[in-house]
Every structure is written in structure tokens, then in C-alpha cells.
């Protein structure tokens, strides 16, 4: 490690925090424009700082003896639990955290910039920017966490910022419901996370990431021999932790909150629900990857299958949705499934760790192109004031820049050479191929489906029928188009970043290459998807209707998202609310409190009964007195003599 001092990195999360405090406390006194500029300025600064850090880390100081060092730039004790267990607050720099720093600040900066135009004239812009800053702060804190508890803390904070931002239009009941749902579902997952942390910390005696993930250290191997219900305790702990990650990353079956979360403003969806927060689960698994690999292999397999299933499941649903943001949401699910799968199939060490690298690579490229897609969708919604693609069509003439960038994003996600999506997806497929052929096959299908639904969206919105709009759609202002263009450029060229030389499972760079035997069929599948979409949706025709009629049940189930929401509703509303909470409330009021009132009532009744003795009749009193006195005399003189 060089003698370079990275401690300035502490300002990367702190600047957005100050921005949050200033905007949150005094924002309503500022002019609307000023709030946006302030927020964006703060983000600009940390964007630059992050890039600088990345440069210093990856190219100047990070690589020592062929290994990227884990650098703890700053670390202070925040709370002491026991002698060994304490929460620290600090900054940990290693390849994945630096990469995430770049991702988060880039997307966040773009979204801030974009929001100045998008949110113009809305009520509560200062609140919006304050929340965005809060989110950025929390996400950065999560990324640079030095220990698992710090991560949990910021994990919760990103959850709450997501809640606040989804519920930004708080007068809209659907937004309120969606925000609530998002928070509670992720909270439920976090319960697993928390218990996982408890188990893990108890076994290993530390929260610290570096100690935990050191493959040569002893912490990682503890607990592997203690079994519990067929799996080692460590596996259970890691599974529970993954449950937290699955909640945040919306893996099946905890994915239900993400489509609803699209009720938030579109830039928020781009930032939180596409590029950054939802990949926190992936980041978590990547962060703890050595433990998963060395002591919890079954958990890793489960992750792979959950990821694979989610990617397929979400891709199927995405093919039928009409709300463009929901299509993108399911697409996000599908892509995160990819990343999870990649981690699940990955091994440890240079080439074996291909999946690990591919996952992070895909995380990076996905952040760029998915943010681009969402921001593009935002520009479309901004122009036509609707979320539904059946109310759109022929927009390519009205929104040229949006059209161009959107097309680039679609091509990228479809995985066409030489766009960035191709490279990362190819690595994932290669990793899956070596590990599990079934998953590999699934991913091929998903690749085709992805291309299909993305181009379905593209053709319906930008081509298709020529819709008559109430007022002519106009291109977005430059604050919105600049981020679009920037991200489009990033999407195109991000693939050429030599990721295998930067982010690897054991921090030792290796030479990555493209396996054309896998890549060419995948491109072909992608092209096939695009072709089908083009046939079906380029011009208005009856193919889609016929398709839907042919695949009647599949279509209906897919359109209704396989009724998962309904199942959840049934469980929460019917079972928990009706059969637990209400009986508890009743029990408390009537049984427990009834007992108390009953005791009081009984006292009352008894006193009512025995008051008859107080008849007021002097002679009765006299009689009782005399007999009582006699009885006492008898007792104390004759019976009770010691």
C-alpha cells in the first residue's frame, strides 16, 4: 500500500449529508432553482472526488505486489457492544467499493442534473432534493462500510430514503401504499439480515469485513462444523444475510415491492430502483463472497438458482406489461437475477472467479444503461404525461435525442457487440456455462426475452401507431438531455473497461477474454428477439392480440404478475391482520383487560353482597358483637392455650 492518504474519502458521503441537512432544514426558504443547483453541485463535487479516488486507487496506489489492497481510510468506534463486538464507522476501499463509489456518484449526479429539469414546477422540490441527497449519503455509506453492521445501518437508511422518495407524491394514495409496501417488505427481509448478522458475529466474534473475508483467516472457517437442520450454522447465517440482500435486490419471492415502487418520480426510479439501491443485495453478496464460497457453498447454490429463476420469471412478466416503468422494473429484476446468478456460479481465484467479476461488471454496465432507460422513460413521460405505452406511439419524430439514447440503451441491454451489455452478459453466460448447464440454458432464454421485451417497448413507443396527443410532445430541456447523452456514451463504451484486471474475487487481476463460442449464439438470440419484436410491434397489426390469444393462460398469468401480489395480500390482510392482529387486540381488550375489570367488578359485587351485614339494626350488631366476643373469649381462654 502506498503512503497515499485516502482519508479525504470520508467527505464523499458527508457532503451529501450536509446537503440533505441544509436543504431539509432551510430548503423551503430557498428559491426552487437554487435547491436543485445546490444539490447537484454537491453531487458534482463528490462525483469528481470519486473519479479521483478511483484513479488513485486503481491506477496509482491500490495495486501492491499484484494484489489490490483493502485500504481502511478511516475507522472510528461508534458503539461498543462487547469486548470484541463493536460497530465502527469508517471507510473501506477495495476494488468493489471503489467501483460502487463510481457507479453511485455517477448515476446520482446524472439524476440530480436531470431532476432539475424534470421536477421543475413541482411542489416540494427542496424536499425532493433533500431526500435524493439523503439517499446518496446512505448509499455511499453502505458502499464504503468497513463492517457488516455499518452496512446494516446504511442499509436501513437507504430503505427509508427509498420509502420517502417512493412516497414523494404523498397525496396520491397509490404512492403512499407503494412506499409502505416497499418499506415493509424490505424490512421483513432485513429481519433475516439482522439475525444473520447476529449468528455470524457470534460465530466469528467480529463484524469487520476484512477479518471476516480473509480466506486465510480463522474467522471464515468457524461455525462450519456446527450443524443445524442439515446445514452448517454458517450456511444458515449466510442464507439469512442473503435474505436481506434478496429483499433489497427484489429477488423472488421478495420482489413484489419493486414494480409498485415505480410510483415514485421517474429519476428516483432510475437512481434507486434501477442503478444503485437494488444492486445493494448483489454488493452484499459480493462483499461477503469469500465466506459464501469457503464455508457456505449450499447458500451460494441457492443464490444461483434464486437469481436464475428471478431473471426468467421477471423477463416473462416484462413481456406483457403496459406501463413502461413497470416493464423497466421487471427488466431490472431480471438483470439483477443475472448478477446474483453470476455470483452464485462463481468460484474463487482468478479464472474460477469469473462469475464474481462478471457480476460486478454487469452491475456496472447495468447501472449505466438501466439509468439511461429510466431517464429516457422519464423524458417520454414528461413529454406525453402518461405511463402507458398503449397511449404512445410514433414518438421518434417528436423526441429525437431521447429516441437515439433509448435505442442505444435497448441495444445495450439486448447484448449486441460492441456495446457494454454484451461484454458483461457474455462473461456471466461463460461463468454459468462452466458451472451449471441448466442455468446456462435459462440465461439464454432470458437473453432472448430481454431483447424481445425491450424492443417491444421501443417499437411501441417510438414507432407503432401515430397517436394524436393533446398537446404536441416536445423534447426535454438540456438539463435532462445531457445526462441522457452522457449515460448513452457510458453505455456504449463501458464494455471496454478491462474489468477482469480491476475487480476480481481475490483482488488479483487476471486476463479476461471473450469466449466467442458462447458470445455468438447469444448475439444471435438477441437479434432473434429484436426481430420478433420488430415484426410484431413496428407497425400496428394484430400479431400481439393473436399471440396473447394463443398463449392465453401464460399471457394472463404473466400480465397479472403470476398473482404473487394477491398471495401476499392474502397472507397479510387475511391471515396476519384478521387472524393475528385483530384477535390480539380483542384478547387484550376483553380477556386481559377484562380480567382486570373483572377483578374490580368482583370486588364491587362482593361488597354489594356483604353490605347487607351493615343493616343498621342495633340489635343485630349487638348479637354479632356478643357472640363474637364470646367466641374470642372461648378461643383465647380454652382452645388456644400453648
Amino acid at each position, binding site marked *: 500500500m502506498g503512503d497515499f492518504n485516502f482519508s479525504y474519502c470520508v467527505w464523499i458521503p458527508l457532503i451529501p449529508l450536509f446537503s440533505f441537512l441544509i436543504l431539509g432544514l432551510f430548503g423551503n426558504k430557498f428559491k426552487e432553482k437554487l435547491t436543485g443547483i445546490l444539490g447537484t453541485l454537491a453531487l458534482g463535487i463528490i462525483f469528481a472526488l470519486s473519479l479521483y479516488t478511483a484513479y488513485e486507487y486503481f491506477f496509482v496506489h491500490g495495486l501492491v505486489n499484484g494484489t489490490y489492497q483493502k485500504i481502511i481510510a478511516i475507522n472510528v*468506534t*461508534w*458503539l*461498543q*457492544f*462487547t469486548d470484541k*463486538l463493536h*460497530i465502527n464507522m469508517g471507510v473501506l476501499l477495495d476494488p468493489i467499493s471503489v467501483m460502487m463509489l463510481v457507479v453511485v456518484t455517477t448515476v446520482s449526479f446524472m439524476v440530480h442534473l436531470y431532476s432539475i429539469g424534470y421536477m421543475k414546477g413541482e411542489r416540494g422540490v427542496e424536499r425532493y432534493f433533500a431526500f435524493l441527497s439523503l439517499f446518496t449519503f446512505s448509499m455511499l455509506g453502505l458502499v464504503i462500510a468497513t463492517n457488516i*453492521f455499518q452496512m*446494516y*445501518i*446504511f442499509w*436501513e*437508511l437507504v430503505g*427509508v430514503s427509498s*420509502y420517502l422518495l417512493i*412516497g414523494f407524491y*404523498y*397525496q*396520491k*394514495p397509490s404512492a*403512499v*401504499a407503494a412506499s*409502505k409496501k416497499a*418499506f*415493509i417488505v424490505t*424490512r*421483513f427481509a*432485513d*429481519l433475516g439480515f*439482522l*439475525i444473520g448478522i*447476529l*449468528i455470524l*458475529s*457470534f460465530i466469528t466474534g467480529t463484524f469487520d469485513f476484512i477479518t471476516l473475508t480473509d480466506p486465510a483467516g480463522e474467522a471464515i472457517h468457524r461455525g462450519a462444523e456446527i450443524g443445524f437442520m442439515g446445514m452448517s450454522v454458517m450456511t444458515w447465517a449466510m442464507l439469512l444475510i442473503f435474505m436481506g440482500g434478496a429483499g433489497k435486490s427484489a429477488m423472488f419471492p421478495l420482489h413484489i415491492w419493486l414494480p409498485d415502487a415505480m410510483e415514485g418520480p421517474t429519476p428516483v426510479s432510475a437512481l434507486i430502483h434501477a442503478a444503485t439501491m437494488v444492486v445493494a443485495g448483489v454488493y452484499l453478496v459480493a462483499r461477503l463472497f469469500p465466506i459464501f464460497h469457503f464455508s457456505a457453498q449450499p447458500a451460494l447454490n441457492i443464490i444461483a438458482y434464486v437469481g436464475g429463476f428471478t431473471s426468467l420469471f421477471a423477463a416473462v412478466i416484462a413481456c406483457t406489461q403496459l406501463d413502461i416503468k413497470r416493464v423497466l422494473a421487471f427488466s431490472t429484476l431480471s438483470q439483477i437475477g443475472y448478477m446474483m446468478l453470476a455470483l452464485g456460479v462463481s468460484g474463487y481465484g482468478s479464472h474460477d472467479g469469473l462469475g464474481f467479476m462478471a457480476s460486478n461488471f454487469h452491475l456496472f454496465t447495468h447501472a449505466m444503461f438501466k439509468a439511461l432507460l429510466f431517464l429516457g422513460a422519464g423524458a417520454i413521460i414528461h413529454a406525453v404525461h402518461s405511463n402507458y405505452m398503449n397511449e404512445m406511439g410514433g414518438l421518434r419524430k417528436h423526441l429525437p435525442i431521447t429516441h437515439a439514447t433509448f435505442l442505444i440503451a435497448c441495444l445495450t441491454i439486448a447484448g449486441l457487440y460492441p456495446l457494454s451489455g454484451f461484454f458483461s452478459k457474455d462473461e456471466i453466460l461463460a461463468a454459468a456455462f462452466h458451472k451449471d448447464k441448466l442455468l446456462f440454458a435459462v440465461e439464454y432464454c432470458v437473453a432472448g426475452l430481454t431483447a424481445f421485451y425491450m424492443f417491444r417497448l421501443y417499437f411501441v413507443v417510438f414507432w407503432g401507431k401515430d397517436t394524436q396527443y393533446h398537446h404536441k410532445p416536445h423534447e426535454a430541456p438540456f438539463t435532462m438531455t445531457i445526462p441522457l447523452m452522457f449515460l448513452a456514451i457510458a453505455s456504449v463504451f463501458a464494455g471496454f473497461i478491462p474489468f477482469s484486471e480491476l475487480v476480481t474475487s481475490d483482488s488479483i487481476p487476471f486476463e479476461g477474454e471473450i469466449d466467442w463460442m458462447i458470445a455468438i449464439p447469444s448475439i444471435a438470440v438477441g437479434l432473434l428477439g429484436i426481430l420478433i419484436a420488430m415484426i410484431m410491434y413496428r407497425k400496428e397489426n394484430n400479431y400481439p392480440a393473436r399471440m396473447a390469444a394463443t398463449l392465453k393462460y401464460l399471457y394472463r398469468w404473466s400480465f397479472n404478475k403470476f398473482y404473487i401480489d394477491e398471495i401476499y395480500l392474502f397472507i397479510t390482510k387475511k391471515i396476519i*391482520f384478521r387472524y*393475528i*392482529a*385483530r384477535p*390480539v*387486540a380483542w384478547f*387484550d381488550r376483553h380477556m*386481559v*383487560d377484562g*380480567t*382486570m375489570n373483572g377483578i*374490580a367488578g368482583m370486588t364491587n359485587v362482593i361488597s354489594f353482597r356483604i353490605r347487607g351485614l351493615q343493616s343498621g339494626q342495633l340489635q343485630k350488631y349487638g348479637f354479632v358483637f356478643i357472640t363474637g366476643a364470646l367466641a374470642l373469649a372461648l378461643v383465647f381462654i380454652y382452645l388456644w392455650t400453648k
Partner: protein
Amino acid sequence: MDYLTYFIIVPLLTVFGIVLCKNDKQVKWTAVIGMSIQLILAAALVFMYLAERKAGNMAEFLFYHDYMWYPALNIRYTIGVDGISVAMVALTSVIIFTGIFASWEVTNLHKEFFISLILLATGVFGFFICVDLFTMFLFYELAVIPMYLLIGIWGTGPKEYSAMKLTLMLMGGSALLLVGLIGLYFNSAPGGGALTFNLIEISKVQIPMEAQRFLFPMTFVGFGILGALFPLHTWSPDGHSSAPTAVSMLHAGVLLKLGRYGAFRVAMFLMPEAAHELGWIFLILTTISVVYGAFGAIQQKDLKYINAYSSVSHCGLVLFALLMMNKTAMDGAIMQMVSHGIMTALFFALIGMIYGRTHTRIIDEMGGLMRVIPFLGVAYVIAGLASLGLPGFSGFVAEMTIFVGSWQHVDTFHRVATIIACSSIVITAVYILRVIGILLLGPVRFDWYNQLTDARWYEKLSVGFLIVCIAGIGIAPLWLSNMIGDSLVPVVEKLNMISFIR
């Protein structure tokens, strides 16, 4: 005059000052001045305490003074504080200070109201600084009795019923408690010698096991009733919902803690063997109350009921952690007391302010308040988030310390209990968000809401101060944790010494 006695003298002088006042304004300002002095005293106490500890004074109780006041029974006015009582005193002074502002709009009998309120606070302060069990009990009663008047006279709804219920149940607790304390007194000198009520001296003797089996449940349940121990908590929802704002604040914020503090300081500290032997029964009860309170809160319609049940849940966690009997969990328990005290006071203050505007506390009859009273709305959201354990607020710190501490027990029983208790964080989120969703968010429900005014300066002061306290602890918890933790060392040593012997 020793420093701690000021905590009793200042409120009494304030009461005296209020008696002399001529109009409402004077009454309020006298109360404000008195309680501000109290707050400053408490802050100074914290600093003095920390300085003293830093200087290496390792006595169990600092600022210790001892005066005889009833020689025949060796009852003494013995005062002293350790880290735990300092935290409690600070908590009380914060809440009574903000409580004064929260009751700015009391409509009738100002003088009597503030006199009762401050008398109540006097009792609480006295309780926390006392080391002599009898004097402690005296102050305990002083804290309970004005409650009856405060709820019965200035309350809302079925106030006579609630006040009577509350007082009777607490008196029932007192009866058990008195038996327990006297039992301790008569067992305080097993080897002969002078009987004593002094906590420190009793803690040094070994109370016979047969006596402990009898006295531990007495004292624990006696204090537990005041601490809303399931299933003896039902006075709390009724009492809270009828009580005026400041009383709810003090009650949930401090009086519940008083019960927990007593259960800890008297029952567990003095009778560790019985705590080990009988702890599991109470652990089951508290585990139930944690989850049960949370589920109970989901279905309630009245804001105060929701909060009362939430208190049952959160306070259940305090006893739960205390019964875990290790340093980390107990540390968390005390922090949870402080945290929940401030948080729930904030809640009740806000509920009082909202009630003052909408004249209802039934959530179904309100909606969209965020738009019309943003300050209170935001404050309510913050209180809610703090309550569901968001990092950055005090609740998180306390809960996590409790969970980590509880997890240090290896056996299945404690593990299962901990997991059940953990699950309350999800249920808490459900009811908190439900309330926020119905109450604050959504479209403005009635047109006349638009005429509502947002918080006035005194309301802002009260609410803002509490929020600053919550966030302060939540962001920088280490000093509090250490202050409490140091004082827990002798307790934990005593508890664990027993477990080694057995």
C-alpha cells in the same frame, strides 16, 4: 447542601413560586424557569459525572450523601447516582421541560395543573437519586398519586374510569412492592446487626434463598406493573388515552421507566440468585409482550392507544434485555429506556398537538394532514421512524445493543426468544407506517383542514428539542453507552458471580 438535593429543591421551589403567581402567564413562565434550571442542573450533572469518572473515581455511587431522618427504623435520606441514574435524571429533566411547553394550552385550573405536574416530576427525580429503599418508595408514591388528579381532572374521554384504573393497579403494585421492600429490610442483616434500607449495604449481604424466592416476584411484579409488564399492562392504554398531553409524556416517558429501573435496581440487583432462578418466567412474559404489544397496536384506531401498545412492546424489550443478564443486553436496556422515553414523549406531544387541532384521535377520521400542518407531520414521521428503529435515531442503537447482547446466550430458549423479539421490528414498521399513511399522507380529507395552523413557537420548541435529543443519541451513542456500561459492571459481576457458584 449537596448537589443532588437540588433536584428535589428546585421543583419544590417552583411549586411554591407557582402558588404565589397571580395569572396564567406567570404560572407558565415560573414553570418554564424552574424546569429550565432543572434541565441545566441535569446537563451539569452529566458532565460532572463524566468528569468525576474520568478522574478515576470508581465508587459505585457518586455524589453520595447520607442523612438520617427516621432513626427508629434506620430510614435514611441517602442519595447517590451512578451512570444509570444520571441517564434517567437527564431523561426526566428533558421530558418535564418539554412537557411544560406541550401543556401550554391547558384550559382550566392552570395553577393546580402545573403544581401537580411538577410534584409528579419531583417524585420521579427523588426516586432516581435515592439509594435508600424506603425513601425511594416514598418518592415513588409521590410520583404516582398526582397522576390520579392529573388524569381525573384534566383528562379527556372516560377520564374517571381511566384514572381510577391506573391508580388502583399501580397501588396494587405498590402493595406488593412494600411487602417486598420490608422483606428486604428484615433480611438486610442476616448475621445480626442493624437492619437497613440502604441499597448498597443490602447488595453486599447474601439474602437467604427462601426469602428471595418470595421477595423477588413481589418486587419484580410490583415494579413491573408500573413498567407495564404483560399481562398487567392494561392500565396503560386507558390511562394514556385519557391523560392530558404532558401527563402522557411524563407517564410513558418516565414513569414506565421508573418501574423498569426499580425492577432492575431493586429486584435483580439485590436478589441475583432468584433472578437467575425465576428469570425465565418473566422472560417468557416479556417476550410475549414485545410481540403482543406490536400486534395489538396494528389494529388500534386511536392514536394514543397505538402508542400505548407500542410502548408495551418497546418497554417489553427493556425488561426482556434486563432479564438476559449480561452487560451488553442490559446496556441496551437502559439505552432503550432513555431512547423510548424521549421518543414516546415526542409521540404523545405530537398526538396532543394534532388532537388540539382536529379534535379527534381516531385515525380513520383524519387524513392528509401532512399538507396542512407540515411541521407536525414531519415531526410525526421522524418520531415514527425513530420508533421503528431507524439508524441515526436512538431507538436503533438501543435495539441493536439489546439484540446483540441477547444473542450472546447460547441455549435454544434464549435464542428463540431473541428471534421472536427481533421480529417485532417488522411489526413495528407495519403499524407505524400504517398510521403515517392514514393520518398524514394522502389527499387532504376535509376542507376545513386548510384553516389549521401549523405548530406555534412553543410547540416547535418542545418537539424540536426532543428530536434533537433522539438524533443526538442516535448519531453519537458511545458516550451514553459507556456511561451506562461502566455502572453496569458491578451489577453484572454480582449476577455472574452467582452463576459461577451454581
